[in-house]
């Protein structure tokens, strides 16, 4: 870098606060872990309710499927019943996908970010973690699952509220939000992927009366039941539920809305903060957005929902890779290169 370049960069840097790459990565993961905790708590809570009422017998198994934990779970716990699944996902420190493990990871990222985030934001996750780390297996007993999940959701929402109210809106906020919406979009796509096929009547059943309560459960797991009812007061079909969760433009947990939010924050990075590193990710996202905008749910179903959602999940992974490559991973390469010199 020559002198004149570095001087012109100085001017840009001082207009917008600089963000260390390490912080950008920690922000992204902090948000992802917090979002993951909330989603997992929602799914466990709804599963608990509906299995209890005999509505959804496949419930506990599908929680494991959504998190792609079948092998590990079977080896450690065997039967997918309420007791085992709750213990595995709520308080098992050895399970990297448990709420306790996610919360630990979120807090360690927050620890890295303490110079950046508000004291209240740190104090909240600190208190949250210190309570959760003291939970025992008895606290995850089936009769307590619902109450515990309510507590987790409430704490995640408190986190979101404090973030919203105290987080300085510069590029760090964009990295935080991108992490949040990638996790949320990914979670919703997994939920639909697993549940749709479990709940869909077999070909022989087509035309028979639909057990709508199972679809209620699916909507509730995504906190979308009331919104769905409002816009579809007169009917409930599997395709309309899938369409709502994947493609609705106003429902905060739909895949489409998440993609649009990611798009907004990537544009903030590239246009608002002049970070050219966002271009590659924007290109990645264009493809995903097009796939969601340019088809109807019927077309997707006809071509194969599972294949489509599989592809969506791969797109999210590719998107994350593009962001990491531009904003933090690439720099590790630079470092190893400079060390080799």
């Amino acid at each position, binding site marked *: *870098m020559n002198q004149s370049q*570095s001087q012109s*960069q*100085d001017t*840009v*840097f*001082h207009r917008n606060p*600089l*963000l*260390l*790459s*390490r*912080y*950008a990565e920690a922000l992204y993961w902090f948000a992802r872990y917090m979002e993951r905790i909330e989603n997992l708590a929602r799914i466990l809570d709804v599963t608990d309710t509906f299995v209890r009422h005999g509505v959804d017998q496949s419930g506990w198994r599908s929680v494991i499927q959504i998190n792609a934990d079948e092998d590990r779970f079977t080896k450690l716990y065997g039967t997918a019943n309420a007791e085992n699944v709750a213990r595995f996902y709520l308080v098992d*420190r*050895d399970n990297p996908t448990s709420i306790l493990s996610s919360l*630990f990871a979120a*807090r*360690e990222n927050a*620890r*890295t970010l*303490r*110079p950046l985030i508000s*004291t209240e934001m*740190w*104090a909240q996750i*600190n*208190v949250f973690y*210190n309570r959760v*780390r003291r939970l025992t297996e008895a606290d995850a007993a089936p009769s307590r699952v619902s109450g515990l999940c309510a507590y987790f959701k409430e704490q995640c929402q408190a986190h979101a509220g404090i973030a919203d109210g105290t987080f300085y809106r510069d*590029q760090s906020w964009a*990295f935080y939000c991108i992490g949040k919406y990638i996790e949320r979009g990914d979670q919703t796509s997994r939920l639909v992927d697993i549940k749709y096929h479990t709940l869909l009547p077999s070909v022989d059943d087509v035309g028979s009366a639909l057990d709508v309560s199972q679809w209620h459960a699916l909507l509730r797991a995504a906190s979308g039941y009331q919104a769905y009812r409002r816009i579809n007061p007169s009917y409930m079909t599997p395709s309309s539920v899938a369409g709502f969760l994947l493609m609705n433009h106003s429902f905060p947990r739909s895949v489409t809305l998440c993609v649009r939010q990611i798009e907004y924050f990537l544009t903030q*990075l590239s246009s608002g*903060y*002049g*970070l050219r*590193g966002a271009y590659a990710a924007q290109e990645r996202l264009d493809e995903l957005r097009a796939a969601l905008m340019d088809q109807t749910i019927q077309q997707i179903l006809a071509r194969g929902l599972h294949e489509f959602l599989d592809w969506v999940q791969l797109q999210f992974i590719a998107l994350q890779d593009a962001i990491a490559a531009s*904003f*933090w991973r690439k*720099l590790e390469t*630079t*470092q190893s290169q*400079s*060390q080799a010199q």
Partner: protein
Amino acid sequence: MNGLLDGYNKGAFFCELMDCAAHDPAVALIAERLAAMDPAELERRARIAEIELFNQGITFTVYSDKDAIDRILPFDLIPRVLTAREWDVLERGVRQRVAALNAFIWDIYHDQKILKDGFVPAPLVLGNANYRPEMVGLNVPHGTYVHVCGVDIIRDENGKFLVLEDNARTPSGVSYVIENRNMMRRIFPDLMDGIAVRPVGSYGMMLQAALAEIAPADVPDPQVVLLSPGIYNSAYFEHIFLAREMGVPLVEGNDLVVQNDRVWMRTTAGLAPVHAIYRRLNDDFLDPDVFRPDSTLGVRGLIDVWRRGNVAIANAVGTGVADDKAIYAYMPRIIRYYLSEDAILPNVETHICGEPGGLAYTLANLEKLVVKPVGESGGYGLIIGPHATRDEIAAFRTQLQNDPANYISQPMISLSVSPTLAGHKLLPRHVDLRPFAITGRKTWVLPGGLTRVALREGSLVVNSSQGGGSKDTWVLE
């Protein structure tokens, strides 16, 4: 006086509160308010304070395999009060000490006049493990090496301030000075009500300004960073705190890179220039090219950039030789040598066994003295005369006579006491004081300092690892 301070017995020691209350109306008022407190209410507030410190993460963290457990530094909510007159002595004394330290360090890395003149034995300096030959001939901005200095001060039974130790490398604890004040404002506003206490909140701004003053002169708006070893360091909270108070990024070694004789930090917008580094990393770890080659915490090539004057580092490399026990004994002479003044804050009485008079005195009084090895050559340990057996003293005598230059001796020190909440009572507990001085062009001393308190009855050990806590330190206007 009655109430909570009834029967308070300071013993043979100077009491920070009661001995000042006698002649200072503001201190008397504080003592009166404390005496009138309900002990249960004090205990309640103490509990709240501890919970808040824990929840806010004003802690150090102990890592195990799968968990990270935070611990607080115990906080005593009874403040340690210094009058304006007392503070005037401390402030001038600390300022003088910092000036002498900087002059001394400049000299030993340049002309070595003080060594040539025989005021300090050359082997003590040149053979010291913390003497850095890499520093010889290097000029640092404003001649400042010790940008942040913490001076450990105790008080004898007459209330006289004595310096116990200089900390000229990376002294820690200042975050507690400021957080303790924040805590007192929240939980004890009624004690402070109407009493003019000098504020401590500007420390971060002063430190940032000092770093900007030592940055390369041609940079109009220098980028300052705080370099931390990372979250596993026990002082990580302080690093966070200072980075926030200074308004600068907290970086780790991997965030920085040297290219084209400059230091850069890795940001989302690419590499951005760094002009001044407040480092909380020991010399040894700063640059694997110059010091420990296995260090992963530092920045390869950093020292070279620094030597070229393209980045500032605070504190400078090589200050460790000046806060060594061996040099401490010579500080009164060092002050006189460079400043032609007597030390405003005297040392604890110290006898240099490397000199005939000091050795003779020490040998004659072994059973009364604490004898300490100096420099990094130790390993023979120290001896506490009053606690040693006759045989131990005899054995030590031989050891001392064989290698007198390796020892200094001091009388048993006494620390002042301060009323401290113990259960539902206020009891005298020993305290020390560490004021902090910041020096860029000029020296500024934070009005107050870290008061550490030995929470165990009779204990003189104020270190947090051995049952020490801290108090808010009030400097009255």
